[in-house]
């Protein structure tokens, strides 16, 4: 099956709405018209609240309180940043679940500028308790993770991106996937940055773990796979977002962390996500340079 993560999402959401009367989709204009069959057949459960993102999350909470499994969907800045207190309280403090599905990732639509860029999303949601955060690297993985989320009542953030790896991996929700075993260091490559990380380390003797569940962080697999004292985090959102998780997982192990990700600066560039990746050292060349620098300091 072809298409971007976003394309696959609409098809799967439509299928889920049709198959399970608990599933409801709440939109704030973004995505309307992309699930035409479900919008027609299940108009009471495919709800567009208009450009009202605070209401989108509040409505999802109310739906959850009346027995539904809501899927909330918008661009990352409008699904996470604008209604952040609703995510914290309406869902979290009230202890009800929803699946928040974002598109746009850090800067997929970079040409629209800072207003549509959200490299902070995972950091923000990581600050809230009880969220499961999925960062798929391929449309097939995104589809698998959405279906897994639909079977639970958890609070789930599913971060879709235009960026994708060439091939899907046989991932298990909640677990790091062992991509390659080496001897000198451990690289944790997140979501759509796996291909770039593999290219960057093709001739390096390093273990590569593939992360599609960012939270809860899979400390067990990291500890079991740990290679050398250097852990390189490669994340497509703010650099260091998972550094504290790695540090806690390895609290009793001597280790160093090299955190590669999007710098926390005020971004004022347009263009494409490829240009942003290159500028932030998140292409294969930039990742390789950072890893070689970190390895050169290995005792």
């Amino acid at each position: 099956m072809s298409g971007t993560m976003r394309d696959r999402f609409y098809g799967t959401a439509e299928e889920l709405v049709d198959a399970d009367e608990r599933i409801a989709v709440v939109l704030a204009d973004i995505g309307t018209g992309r699930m035409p069959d479900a919008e027609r057949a299940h108009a009471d459960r495919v709800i567009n609240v208009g450009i009202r993102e605070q209401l989108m999350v509040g409505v999802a909470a109310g739906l959850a309180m009346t027995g539904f499994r809501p899927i909330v969907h918008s661009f990352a800045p409008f699904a996470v940043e604008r209604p952040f207190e609703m995510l914290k309280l309406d869902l979290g403090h009230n202890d009800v679940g929803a699946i928040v599905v974002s598109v746009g990732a850090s800067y997929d639509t970079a040409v629209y500028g800072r207003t549509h860029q959200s490299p902070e999303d995972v950091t923000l949601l990581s600050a809230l308790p009880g969220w499961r955060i999925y960062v798929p690297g391929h449309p097939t993985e995104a589809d698998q993770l959405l279906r897994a989320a639909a079977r639970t009542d958890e609070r789930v953030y599913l971060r879709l991106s235009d960026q994708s790896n060439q091939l899907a991996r046989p991932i298990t929700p909640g677990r790091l996937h062992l991509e390659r075993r080496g001897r000198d260091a451990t690289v944790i490559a997140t979501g759509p940055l796996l291909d770039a990380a593999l290219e960057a380390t093709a001739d390096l003797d390093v273990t590569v773990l593939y992360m599609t569940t960012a939270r809860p962080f899979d400390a067990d697999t990291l500890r079991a796979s740990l290679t050398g004292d250097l852990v390189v985090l490669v994340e497509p959102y703010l650099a260091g977002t998972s550094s504290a998780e790695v540090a806690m997982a390895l609290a009793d192990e001597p280790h160093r962390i090299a955190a590669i990700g999007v710098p926390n600066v005020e971004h004022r560039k347009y263009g494409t996500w490829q240009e942003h990746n290159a500028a932030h050292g998140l292409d294969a060349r930039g990742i390789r340079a950072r890893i070689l620098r970190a390895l050169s300091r290995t005792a």
Partner: protein
Amino acid sequence: MTVTIPALEYSDLRRLMDFQLGDEKHAPSATSTLDVIWVLYDRILRIKPDRTDDPDRDRFVLSKGHGPMAYYAVLAAKGFIDVETLRTFGRYDSPLGHHPDRNLVPGIEISSGSLGHGLGIAVGMALGLRARHSAARVFCLVGDAELDEGSNHEAIAFAGRVGLANMNVVAVDNRSSFYGWPGGIAARFALEGWSSATVDGRDHAALEQAFNLERDGRPHAVVAVVESKA
């Protein structure tokens, strides 16, 4: 928590509120809502203290969360909370905080306290009940100052547009909104397609009548005017 059915009356509420000490800051909020909440629980809402998980119960949503002493007093009078629990109000291990938590008290529908959240959740509840073809209704209490929060107006506009007829708002107006509502609060709802009524928030018969007004397939707002906070 032990739940007893004490069959207490309106005249007992002040005594029950007196059990709850320590939130003087929110005392005006508590007294302003007292009659509205009593009338809802005594005459309007179809809910039972031993069936707080009934999927077809009416929902009462205390959006503003402030001054819940009146709410807790009514819940105690109606058998949702043990009366003695009121004396634990605000203590570290008490289920009764200065803002309510649905996870600590069966019968409390939402955890609230940050203004501007309840109405959106209530709209979601009403949509969910409508999708399930339930006859249950949702009643959401907001304060006139709480309406300053823009999130409320997202919910008011949307509910009006989609004719959410099982949705009810009661806005308790004690003139605490800093800039006020020129033209009246009811007009704001009416403009968005709600039916509306403005009544004396201390008049039980008038409140009951206002809640029961025919709304012609529209959501319904009752503005309950009480003494000015100032």
